[in-house]
């Protein structure tokens, strides 16, 4: 049995390891096109601020991890997939036959179509190579422009600000992290960043970039011009689906999969950022470019590839956690609210504390938090377990900070033992 995985990011690696555990005798091949051992993009910001060495970004720490597990790691680019012959064709020549194939090619940054966007010296912060380049140029006093204040932009933001650079952030939409935070929370994050000396322009677009000697001259749609020594682009990512063009494997935003993470070709699976998997909250299929979803996809795909019956995806909860210069925020599920649902909200602007819970009936379906670091995962637990909150819902409407009590009080084992249920 030949299992082949394209992409050596978290989804690819977790799938390879899961397969090894499930089918010890099978061949498992992992093909990745970057120079380095499999590494985590999540860790790049920490590498940028030199909190960790490059090796600290590696997904697996021991150098013989994959050989010990008898996983064949190929540093190569996949040129094409031959579905008929069930082969993966490598750029370096040669083919890898597969019985089951997993596409875990992740995503890549996309650049807006702006004059000058292709100038040298403009980096996405996506690969280790990008990070090395940014780290070399983001120095104290350097003028740095960050394009995009989405989730990835905000992760890099902290690293850039910490480097001592004079940082300006430009975000097209009307608030920071618009796809993770509502107006209130996004506004608070902006105020916080500005308080820390970062210049933040929301509802602002870069319209042109010109090289002006050693630096860039950047024109904004507001008419003003700013100078930058370094430009970091984080304006969005797109699933790497190009490989599938012409193969007949169906794609939309990402690769379409069923609840077994299987594409329309029963021998081909997809996982991670490239897969349009099931969203727990909406029941719809969409790309969730986040680490926990990648790991869930990968485990599920591997189990299905190994032929385990009943490994069905119930959907992943969309969630994110962000640390913007010390202000920690998170959001879960239907943080924007559910139809006919109820909201419990608590705001303290002075302290940058915010908590917003979304209910459908007496079930928690979404949440947003700012400044919460303790027991925050229980928000996911309550959402994903669809726990009926009963009396606790009313109490949470009154005081959403009692979330942990609500969880313990309304879950059978503890609630019962504590004589609360």
């Amino acid at each position, binding site marked *: 049995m030949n299992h082949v995985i394209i992409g050596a990011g978290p989804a690819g690696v977790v799938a390879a390891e899961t397969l090894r555990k499930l089918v010890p005798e099978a061949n498992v091949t992992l093909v990745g096109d970057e120079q380095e051992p499999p590494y985590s993009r999540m860790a790049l910001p920490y590498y940028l601020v030199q909190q960790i060495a490059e090796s600290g970004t590696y997904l697996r720490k021991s150098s013989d991890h994959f050989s010990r597990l008898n996983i064949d790691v190929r540093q190569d680019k996949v040129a094409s997939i031959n579905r008929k012959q069930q082969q993966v064709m490598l750029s370096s020549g040669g083919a890898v036959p597969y019985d089951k194939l997993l596409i875990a090619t992740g995503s890549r940054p996309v650049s807006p179509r702006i004059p000058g966007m292709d100038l040298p010296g403009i980096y996405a912060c996506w690969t280790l190579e990008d990070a090395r380049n940014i780290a070399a140029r983001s120095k104290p006093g350097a003028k740095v422009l960050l394009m995009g204040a989405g989730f990835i932009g905000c992760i890099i933001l902290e690293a850039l600000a910490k480097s001592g650079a004079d940082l300006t952030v430009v975000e097209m939409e009307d608030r920071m992290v618009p796809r993770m935070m509502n107006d209130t929370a996004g506004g608070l994050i902006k105020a916080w960043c500005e308080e820390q000396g970062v210049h933040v322009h929301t509802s602002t677009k870069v319209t042109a970039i010109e090289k002006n000697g050693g630096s860039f001259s950047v024109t904004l749609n507001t008419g003003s011009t700013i100078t930058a020594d370094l430009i970091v682009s984080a304006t969005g990512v797109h699933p790497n689906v190009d490989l599938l063009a012409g193969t007949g494997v169906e794609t939309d935003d990402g690769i379409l999969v069923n609840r077994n993470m299987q594409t329309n070709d029963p021998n081909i699976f997809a996982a991670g950022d490239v897969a349009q998997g099931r969203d727990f909250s909406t029941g719809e299929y969409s790309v969730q470019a986040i680490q926990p979803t990648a790991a869930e996809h990968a485990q599920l795909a591997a189990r299905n590839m190994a032929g385990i019956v009943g490994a069905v995806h119930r959907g992943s909860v969309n969630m994110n956690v962000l640390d913007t210069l010390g202000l920690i925020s998170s959001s879960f599920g239907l943080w924007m609210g559910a139809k006919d649902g109820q909201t419990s909200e*608590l705001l*303290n602007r002075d*302290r940058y*504390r915010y*908590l917003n819970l979304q209910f459908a009936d007496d079930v928690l379906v979404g949440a947003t938090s700012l*400044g*919460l670091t303790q027991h925050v995962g229980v928000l996911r637990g309550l959402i994903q377990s669809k726990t009926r909150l009963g009396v606790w819902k009313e109490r949470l409407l009154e*005081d959403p*900070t*009692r979330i*942990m*009590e609500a969880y313990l009080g309304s879950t059978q084992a503890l609630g019962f033992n504590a004589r609360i249920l």
Partner: protein
Amino acid sequence: MAWTRKILRVNLTKGTCVAEPLNMDWATKYLGQRGLASKYLAEEIDPACDALSPANNLIMATGPLTGTMASTGGRYSVITKSPLTGAIACSNSGGFIGNEIKNAGWDMIIFEGKSPKPVYLYLENDNATLCSADEIWGKSVWETDDILHTKYQDPLLRIAAVGRAAEQGCLYSAVVNDKHRAAGRSGVGTVMASKNLKAVAVRGTKGVGNIRDPQAFIRATVEGKRVLAENAMTGEGLGALGTQALMNVINEVGAMPTRNMREVQFEGASKISGEAMLEPRESDGKANLTTNGACFGCTIACGRISTIDPQHYTIADKPQYAGNSGGLEYEAAWALGSNTGVDDLDALTYANFLCNEDGYDPISFGATVSAAMELFQIGALTTKDTGGLELKFGSAEALTKAAELVAIGEGFGKDLGLGSKRLCDKYGHPELSMTVKGQEFPAYDPRGIQGMGLAYATSNRGACHLRGYTVSSEILGVPVKTDPFATEGKPELVKAFQDATAAVDSAGLCVFTTFAWTLEDIAPQVAAACEGNWTAESMVEAGERIWNLERKFNIDAGLTAADDTLPERLLKDAAKTGPAKGKVNELGKMLPQYYQIRGWTVDGVPTAETLARLSV
């Protein structure tokens, strides 16, 4: 060590919060909490000042063991000059805020002056801010607690606050922390409110370290906890029945002050006892007591968590009191119950809830109501004075209505808020006030427990059982049994208890540990935690030093030997029933000798030699 070596000084007049180093010379002599803060108070204010003026200071102090794994190591005290007694006041409380202050990095907080407007202190580690109290002034302690928790979105914020009683000037107002723990006695809450300080909200995440010898400390505290666990009272009795374990015991020995201390046994004691709190009631089949709860770090867990009978008249239209809250301790059950002649457990529980909700001392409140009941009985008070309230002994309705009025300082509640002494003075019968130095008695009648008479008379904060609890020896036989009716040896016994208690109160520990612990058990814990050579002997010496410091403060405040006395009722009217039948308290036989062994003059003034010997 174990001290954080840092004090927060808050000048309410100027609105400033300043950190300063702890005076370590004083710390090694006065240990912490009660002793150390009393030293600061004595050095910094004029003892003769008006307690409710800006010239008074209010100190919240922790001990060196506060916030450590020593059992009961979560205490803090509020030290100030008392408006009730004019003497030095130190009220000790458990709960969780003491630990929080220490975890925020502070040994004590000293409040000076008076804020021009109501404020509260928000303290998060190093960050201390005085904030406008507009949204909480005029609110109860419980509302204040809820509002601040929600505002800061922090369930672990620990809050101490004064209620509406203090705002209205009730002279025995408490500082309530964690909703139902209180620095209850002597009107420390009244002082806090007089400074326009509504609350202190604390969050500490720094931890408590600086343990001198960590291994020895863990050994000593583990051993201490073992001793507590194996003792019948601290290992079992207090957990099961709370201090209410004493109700039936004290009633049987005939030392249960009843109906303003006219009698020494209460026929309804069994109905309001700890045992009664365990009996399922008819309405919902539940007992008054839900469970026992602990203060921070306490392995005894005597705290009562109770509900009121849902069908009881007090809460029929008040669902906000339907849940669990702090239940009756022995002192509260006695003061609200036996001393007023009320045997309705739910009425007492309700009144106790109100004491916590709006912050006033249930002992002084119950004793003041009982004095008012006696005034009412003899006709010195009428319904014209009370606004229609029929203040009859045994009337639960009168008790709970009085509690409601004192809570908000309205109507006759204003008079009741004066305390027993001023109330009886006002209505022309000072002899009916059962107080020492203006503070109401607790739940042990000194006719049946002679040593307690001397302890009350000489207590530095007025009548109080927690300044020298000789009940322990005279009734319970701890550490040695003495005859409760004898006066011989009692001056020595009282002095020993007073000095030892002062040391325990200054360490950050709960005095209830001394049902099982002696200073021989405590000293190794203190010694392992703190620099300085702490032994049982040096702790006794520190205790004696503290006692004399407090005494000197009181004398400088204008108190004299004439204040070291008991109401005539206890000295002249013999107990009518029980084992103590026919007895009065024979204070006169004990007091002179007490002065002598204290090293005081015949007028009760510490001699220069004594002060020098103890280097006060």
